[in-house]
């Protein structure tokens, strides 16, 4: 390092003071932003936890559970499943929709873990898979993954730190990224020290931030706004095909369920014909590769509704089913539920 002469100031003093001012500003910003409370607009705080409590407090163990994201949350109606499958089987059927309105495959695996931890396993579990959930980019799975962690905050978890995670978690502080700053700070801390994360996070979803940014409400957006939202936010569709946090989470969920003797069905929900392809072609092909690998490894096949089963007008935003669409789909799904329950010899635990 260049030594300072008696007449010349130490050349390192300037950078050192700049660095000090920089870090103090960072810490001060951290403290200040920790006080920021964001309004909850969409989704629900600890929705996953709430769903798990619903499961645990159910009068008896459900025969069937649906675990997934907003696709299943909006698209599956247990009341119709119960009636239709019950009629086909000639006995009472009890199903629960545990899907979260803002969830990822990671959330699904957390739901499964908590559900199984309750000591009561259903006969059949339908796990939702979708291009948007499975073959997402790093940024996306972090966003969704963080939601999952927030939703299942009572579960002790270990988060595997990724090279970009620190940066991403810092960026989560963005007001449009749906998280309160203290969550981000906690995440960052955990990534920095590599410690097991015991989530005490509180999510405040603001999924309409994107829609607000470009003006208008989510439902007013054309198809590509909804489907390409994250891509348009700068996310490249190039996906982590067979090995991403969501993919691993889904595999884990399948394994956990099977180990508990639960019959697993993978369910891909329909989207409207008016919906643009999810993200870019690379994302679609990554999703296909992911599903291909998963079905090959697990021997499961993917249940897909026949094309045209639900007319476009039954989707409220090109992706998610409205009540009538959900009824149509649930009637179709009930046949598979009845068939699967009929084939499953294990009686429901009471």
């Amino acid at each position, binding site marked *: 390092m*260049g030594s300072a002469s008696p007449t010349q100031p130490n050349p390192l003093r300037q950078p050192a003071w700049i660095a000090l001012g*920089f870090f103090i*500003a*960072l810490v001060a910003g951290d403290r200040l932003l920790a006080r920021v409370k964001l309004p909850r607009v969409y989704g629900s705080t600890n929705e996953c936890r709430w769903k798990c409590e619903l499961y645990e407090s159910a009068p008896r163990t459900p025969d069937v559970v649906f675990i997934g994201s907003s696709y299943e949350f909006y698209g599956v109606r247990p009341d119709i499943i119960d009636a239709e499958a019950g009629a086909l089987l000639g006995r009472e059927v009890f199903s629960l929709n545990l899907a979260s309105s803002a969830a990822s495959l990671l959330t699904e695996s957390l739901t499964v873990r908590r559900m199984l931890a309750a000591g009561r396993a259903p006969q059949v579990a339908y796990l939702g898979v979708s291009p948007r959930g499975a073959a997402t980019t790093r940024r996306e799975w972090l966003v969704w993954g963080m939601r999952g962690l927030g939703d299942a905050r009572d579960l002790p978890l270990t988060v595997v730190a990724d090279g970009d995670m620190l940066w991403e978690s810092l960026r989560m502080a*963005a007001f449009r990224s749906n998280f309160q700053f203290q969550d981000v700070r906690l995440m960052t801390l955990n990534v920095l020290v590599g410690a097991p994360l015991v989530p005490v996070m509180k999510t405040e979803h603001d999924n309409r931030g994107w829609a607000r940014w*470009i003006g208008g409400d989510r439902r007013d957006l054309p198809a*590509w706004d909804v489907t390409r939202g994250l891509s348009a936010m700068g996310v490249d569709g190039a996906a982590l095909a067979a090995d991403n946090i969501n993919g691993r989470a889904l595999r884990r969920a399948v394994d956990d369920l099977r180990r508990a003797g639960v019959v697993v069905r993978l369910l891909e929900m329909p989207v409207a014909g008016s919906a643009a392809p999810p993200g870019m072609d690379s994302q679609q092909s990554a999703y296909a590769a992911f599903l291909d690998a998963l079905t090959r490894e697990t021997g499961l096949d993917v249940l897909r509704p026949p094309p045209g089963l639900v007319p476009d007008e039954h989707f409220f935003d090109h992706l998610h089913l409205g009540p009538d669409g959900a009824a149509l789909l649930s009637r179709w799904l009930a046949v598979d539920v009845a068939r699967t329950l009929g084939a499953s010899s294990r009686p429901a635990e009471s």
Partner: protein
Amino acid sequence: MLFNSPAFAIFLPVMLLVYWALRGRPRQWALLAGSYFFYSVWDWRFTGLLVLSTAIDFVCGRVLDGCAAPRRRKAIVTASVIANLGILAGFKYFNFFRDSAAALLSACGFGADLPMLHVILPMGISFYTFQSMSYTIDVYRGMPAERSFIAFATYVTCFPQLVAGPIMRAQDLLPQLHEERTLAQADFSTGVFRVFRGLFKKMVIADSLSIYVDMVFADPGDFSGISCWIALYAYAFQIYMDFSGYTDVAVGAGYMLGLRMTENFNLPYLAASPSEFWRRWHITLSTWLRDYLYIPLGGSRSGLRRTMRNLFLTMALGGLWHGAAWTFVAWGVYHGVLLAAQRLVNAWRGPSPVADPFPLRALKVLGMFHLTCLGWLLFRAQDWATVQVMLARLVDFSSGEIRGKRIVLIVVACALAHLLPGAWRLGERFVRLPAFVQGSLAGVCMWALILLNPGVKAFIYFQF
């Protein structure tokens, strides 16, 4: 490595610490090693290409230096140019020409299964091949050749300017690399200011604008005419903020290393004519094209017709330099037409001895800005169909919802920033602040980057 990535946030301070901890030759080595590391983070396999390009021109320069025979000198410089352009053609243009040839043959009724190269475009190849090649041409023109391979390799690969310029001239950078540099306080502060200003331009302004621009250009048919105009204006400022932001970081990092990089921008949208635009936009490329292409072609020395031809050729090749697509060529030709038209008007009207009055100049600036925006349409559109749809939309004001109103605010803010009085001298004011305050402001800027950046996205010019 991207300037707007966390890796760079770690790399730069570490690099600076190591760099300033060393002196003399080890410092040079550290800069070279750091530059190669910087590049290899993207893809280490292509560092071989960097070495090859460097070695070719270093050897050519040395051979030229010891050679007096004009024909032999010409052969050497030709070999260097062919080698450099060969590398560029192979990696960047082979598939483009292959596709174009296949389309042409098909249109003529000949089906041909032409071979295709399955290679990715090495990052920054257009920049470092041009920089390296210009050195050999300069030596051919009489500049003394560099004796030290390390210094020359550092000149070619110096990380601030490696992947997207500024395209440095050997006579500007090489002497600096030989000097024993000292860490000047004002330089370091200027570097901090430029780095954060550049990141703000890129990560907050350009990336925010890109959200709307990407949507509109993805499907312009879904948007009203006014929305398309907003997207076009937004893109004009997106590309400026993106590229000038990159240059700011490059120049700022240079300052921190005690190196002066050439400035690349000078408020381009204040240009009142096409030639003035090119004196303000991507200055190092336009001067490169002028010195190594336009003037060797004859420049404006052989009459109006030849001048026009040279302008067309230079700008068309300049367009092709940007990307292997006909839309880029069309963009270059478009600017060639503008420059030629200006030449014609000047020849017809004769030189004006007095400067334009303010209202006339303002009108000219506004007109030139819109001409530039139309050029950006060619530059940004992914294909001809998009160009056609956008053009149709731009002249259709009949109906449709106006979207992207918030984007207008950013665009207006960018335009106002363009008009910011030079007397404000924000950089100089920043440098005069106490160091602690400078750091605090940088920290505040860092928070702005974290909070307002919509996503990590590569710089537009990285693809070139």
